[in-house]
């Protein structure tokens, strides 16, 4: 019988809101309902999945709906899972609609079990067993315990290719990624079966044959089976090789757009050659890219081999469909949270509202990565909806800090603790300008430098900048001849591109250098033997035959020391000849070229730079320094790269400066040079200073002839000792310090290899290296040791391994190197480490 509903009453609700129940009911107040409608509403309520039991009755004209809510899940805990993380399992369950707080249904329990089983079967764990247990909790809730026995992963025991006559089973097995259990399998897991890997292997098997002429190779069927105990997997592939084909004729058809011989240049397939699918695909690729450069972004080139009946010859037909000439509508950038839009846009070689060129777009992408502001730049060219010849170009970049504001802390063996506040920002405030405020102090050098460069002073890339610096170095600290230099100055610099990847640079600098030679300054700097300042009298004391010296007859002030008492130094030191304060203005011109694929940690391309720094006539010192630096990367395998690096330096004085000033000398050894040797220690040594011997006279005669304690009441006076008309000379014994030279020859070959666990190779680089190099001096002082003119067999070699890791503080590098032919004077240093300075 039917009745008209005056009201609907729902009873038994706990958590579900009344609103959602009323919404689920197909009937409402005022409807007339019959038996069928009531059953339909019960069904639709049940469909919500929230209720275990629904009873619908009548109370007069009020429809009474009594529901029993399904329990909700209070917690899910999983034990016994080792291979798959609990989170991963829970995520899988959430996907199957099973999570804490959800309504619990019997069907979802089976769904859950199947889901977990599926995850394990996918991992090749065919005999995994899963038990579930549901425990009721108060307030109509349930908790679910899952006990997993993961079983063992089925390992591949046997792979058999049936029907291969041309290539042997072992040869084919090499192609397969799936392998039978070998000794490395515990690590590479290559003996774990997975469907994807098998499909991949079958594809590489097919292309292996197709690339060697077997056009009609096909795989008839593959069988995968398990041993009864489900721990071993057996794979068999049944193939029909077909005959080997050679290429008969090759011709192009369709709308070539370019003259035929332009496109034919990209033809890798030639007559008489064995057919190779690989060559066909790469020909297609090169031609499509060439057409892309012509603005045909949607060009399609398909190579179709047509078999001439009955023969093993195939006629290759390349059909060219250029599609419509495409234009770029808009170029957008994504991910440049700090870098301004025009900093990216000015690197573009592709314009908006212009014909699209695939090579220009790719070039733009590489230029973005070469900036060094981004760790990665990718580009997509989606078609503009509604226009089949318009594309948008969407770049996405991932910014990396190209410098840091704030204190930087570094440690290097040669420089000790490097403390400094530096604001070396290549992308200052995202404007693309390079700003550097460096306030560094370390054991041997204090450097204050402010530099500003705008690489895009004009749209075409003419750069303009300046820098001012003050540097005071005390090189005695870092095993270089003991002298200190205080230099300050500044320079204006400009640069502009002369080709897509080459730039010229000019810099006009002015610098004032002051050298203070230490007391023990080496001979090359200050002639020896020399008088010590602070000792201003001498006395004659004759040596007795028992070796002692006679008493001092008289103390004579230094001024009236007869000249011939001094020994004449054979060679004047640099400071003697040129004084110790130089105001030079220098012009540096440089040519640089770079096709590196990444600003930092590049893996492909070359970079060379030649620079000539000339201290112009009219400066106190007139010298020039020529410097070449180059590096080139050869990809050896997909992941191994060979990097060759070289550096040459030559400097000399001209005009009235006889030699390259010693503080401008080249040094070698240590990081960035020949590792395995202590830094800056290779090459010529300085000769220790010779000083006139001083001694305290024991007793002395005062002017009126009676013995007196020389040195006066407050302390011992010093005086020079002379013997038979000559002041005695003693040489300092401290070991000779490296002095550098005016010729630098250096190079290294590094084999970059991937560390097994490291995925992000732009952050960490490891390499085996062979370093070679030394410093020479064309004008060795006669007494200088370890000083040679340019001589190949004096080059030092070392071999070792080094790792650089870019951390938050900047690059951290360490290397372990073994010198092969260290000279007697060279100081070796096997392990070298520096933080805050790259190599």
């Amino acid at each position: 019988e039917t009745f008209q509903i005056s009201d609907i009453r729902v009873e038994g609700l706990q958590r579900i809101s009344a609103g959602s129940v009323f919404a689920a009911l197909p009937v409402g107040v005022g409807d007339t309902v019959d038996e069928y409608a009531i059953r339909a509403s019960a069904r639709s309520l049940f469909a919500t999945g929230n209720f275990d039991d629904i009873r619908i009755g009548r109370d007069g004209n009020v429809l009474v709906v009594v529901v029993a809510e399904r329990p909700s899940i209070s917690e899910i805990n999983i034990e016994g899972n080792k291979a798959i993380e609990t989170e991963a399992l829970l995520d899988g369950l959430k996907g199957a609609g099973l999570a804490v707080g959800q309504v619990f249904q019997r069907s979802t329990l089976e769904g859950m079990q199947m889901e977990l089983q599926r995850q394990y079967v996918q991992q090749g764990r065919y005999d995994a067993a899963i038990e579930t247990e549901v425990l009721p909790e108060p307030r109509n809730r349930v908790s679910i315990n899952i006990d997993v026995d993961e079983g063992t992963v089925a390992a591949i025991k046997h792979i058999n290719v049936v029907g291969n006559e041309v290539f042997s089973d072992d040869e084919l097995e090499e192609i397969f990624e799936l392998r039978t259990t070998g000794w490395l399998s515990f690590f590479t897991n290559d003996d774990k079966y997975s469907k994807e890997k098998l499909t991949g292997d079958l594809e590489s098997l097919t292309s292996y044959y197709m690339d060697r002429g077997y056009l009609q190779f096909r795989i008839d069927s593959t069988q995968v089976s398990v041993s009864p105990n489900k721990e071993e997997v057996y794979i068999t592939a049944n193939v029909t090789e077909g005959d080997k084909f050679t290429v008969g004729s090759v011709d192009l058809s369709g709308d070539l757009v370019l003259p035929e011989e332009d496109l034919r240049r990209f033809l890798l397939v030639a007559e008489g050659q064995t057919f190779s699918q690989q060559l066909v695909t790469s020909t297609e690729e090169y031609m499509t890219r060439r057409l892309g450069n012509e603005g045909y972004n949607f060009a399609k080139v398909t190579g179709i081999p047509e078999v001439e009946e009955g023969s093993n010859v195939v006629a290759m037909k390349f059909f060219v469909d250029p599609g419509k000439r495409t234009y770029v509508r808009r170029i957008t950038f994504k991910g440049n949270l700090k870098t301004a839009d025009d900093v990216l846009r000015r690197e573009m070689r592709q314009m908006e509202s212009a014909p699209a060129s695939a090579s220009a777009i790719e070039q733009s992408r590489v230029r973005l990565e070469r900036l060094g502001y981004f760790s990665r730049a990718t580009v997509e060219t989606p078609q503009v909806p509604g226009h089949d010849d318009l594309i948008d170009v969407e770049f996405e970049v991932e910014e990396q800090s190209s410098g840091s504001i704030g204190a930087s802390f570094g440690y290097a063996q040669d420089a000790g603790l490097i403390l400094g506040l530096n604001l070396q920002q290549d992308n200052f405030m995202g404007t693309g300008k390079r700003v550097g405020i460096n306030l560094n102090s370390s054991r041997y050098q204090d450097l204050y430098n402010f530099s500003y460069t705008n690489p895009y002073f004009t749209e075409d890339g003419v750069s303009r900048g300046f820098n001012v610096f003050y540097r005071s170095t005390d090189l005695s600290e870092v095993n270089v001849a003991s002298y200190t230099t205080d230099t300050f100055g500044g320079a204006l610099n400009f640069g502009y591109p002369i080709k897509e990847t080459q730039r010229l640079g000019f810099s006009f600098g002015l610098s004032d250098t002051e050298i203070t030679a230490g007391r023990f300054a080496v001979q090359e700097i200050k002639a020896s033997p020399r008088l010590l300042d602070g000792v201003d009298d001498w006395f004659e004391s004759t040596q007795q035959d028992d070796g002692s010296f006679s008493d001092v007859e008289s103390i004579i002030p230094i001024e009236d020391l007869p000249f011939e008492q001094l020994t004449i130094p054979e060679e004047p030191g640099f400071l003697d000849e040129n004084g110790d304060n130089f105001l030079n203005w220098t012009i540096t011109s440089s040519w640089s070229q770079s096709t590196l694929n990444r600003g930092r940690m590049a893996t492909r391309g070359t970079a060379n730079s030649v620079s000539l720094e000339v201290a112009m006539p009219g400066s106190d010192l007139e010298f020039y320094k020529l410097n070449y630096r180059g590096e080139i990367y050869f990809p050896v395998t997909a992941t191994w790269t060979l990097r060759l690096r070289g550096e040459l330096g030559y400097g000399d004085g001209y005009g009235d400066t006889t030699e390259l000033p010693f503080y401008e000398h080249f040094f070698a050894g240590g990081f960035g040079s020949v590792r395995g040797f202590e830094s800056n220690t290779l090459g010529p040594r300085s000769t220790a200073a010779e000083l006139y011997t001083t001694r305290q006279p024991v007793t002395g005669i005062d002017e009126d002839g009676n013995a007196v304690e020389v040195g006066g009441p407050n302390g011992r006076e010093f005086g020079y000792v002379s013997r038979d008309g000559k002041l005695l000379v003693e040489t300092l014994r401290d070991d000779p310090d490296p002095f550098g030279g005016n010729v630098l020859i250096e190079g290294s070959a590094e084999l970059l290899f991937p560390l097994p666990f490291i995925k992000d190779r732009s952050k960490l680089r490891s390499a085996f290296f062979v370093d070679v190099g030394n410093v020479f001096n064309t004008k060795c002082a006669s007494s200088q040791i370890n000083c040679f003119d340019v001589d190949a067999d004096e080059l030092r070699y070392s071999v070792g391994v080094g790792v650089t890791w870019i951390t938050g503080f900047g690059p951290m590098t360490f290397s372990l190197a073994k010198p092969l032919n260290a000279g007697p004077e060279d100081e070796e240093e096997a392990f070298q480490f520096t933080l805050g300075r790259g190599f």
Partner: protein
Amino acid sequence: CAGNDELPDIAADTGEQQIYEEAQRYLRSSNWDLAVRSLQLLESRYPFGKYAEQAQLEIIYAHYNGYEHEAAVEAADRFIRLHPAHPNVDYAYYMKGLAAYTGNDDIFSRFLPTDESERDVTQAKEAFAEFNQLVSRYPASPYAPDARARMVHLRNLLARHEILVANYYFRRGAYMAATNRGRYVVENFQRSPAVADGLAVMAQGYILLGLDDLAKDTIEVLALNYPNHPNIDKNGNFKSVYTLDGLQRNWINKATFGLFFPPTPPQFDTRPKL
């Protein structure tokens, strides 16, 4: 093993009320992650208690203040999914908008003189879409006025970005690219103040492209709508700032190969100094 340094584990049986009070104290003392933890504890232990909904809302607030914007959006999404018809669901939409609006600015960025319209605009688009959800669904919500004001700001920012790019292309010499960017603003960003500059860019571009009659029409519209635009002189014709043979350069610049005192390229930018 070593117990992790979790929140001092609140005794299992502390009542719903105490945990909620605990969370309030952390919120008041701006201790955001502890607040989040106790609110989450409250929710998991009493998922259907009377504070559950309120706790979910306050988790959003705590995440946002703790600069964990993704987590705030996630919490808001969860609230919207669980309580689509909740009277306070507008708050969740609003917070999603705010999280996208602040994006990954840190504490300083509101002071730095960087111009957002120069930076990546995808963040602005996302924020606009989120606020749009709120304003179009709940025009009466107390948060709607603030959301709408931000939407207007975002739209103007997106329009300004187009003009900046147009200025670059004028400097670069790609006049058609600049014109089309101007046209894009005029055609798509009606009601934004950048439309005036869009028209000026179009006019200047057409002149440089030699399409004078198109330029004439554009100038007529510009003069009609923005008579006091800097590129319109008093009797309504257009002051062209770019010519086909580059910018005038003073003699010093010429003498020093263009390296010193370069002419500053004109900019179409009539943004009022706020």
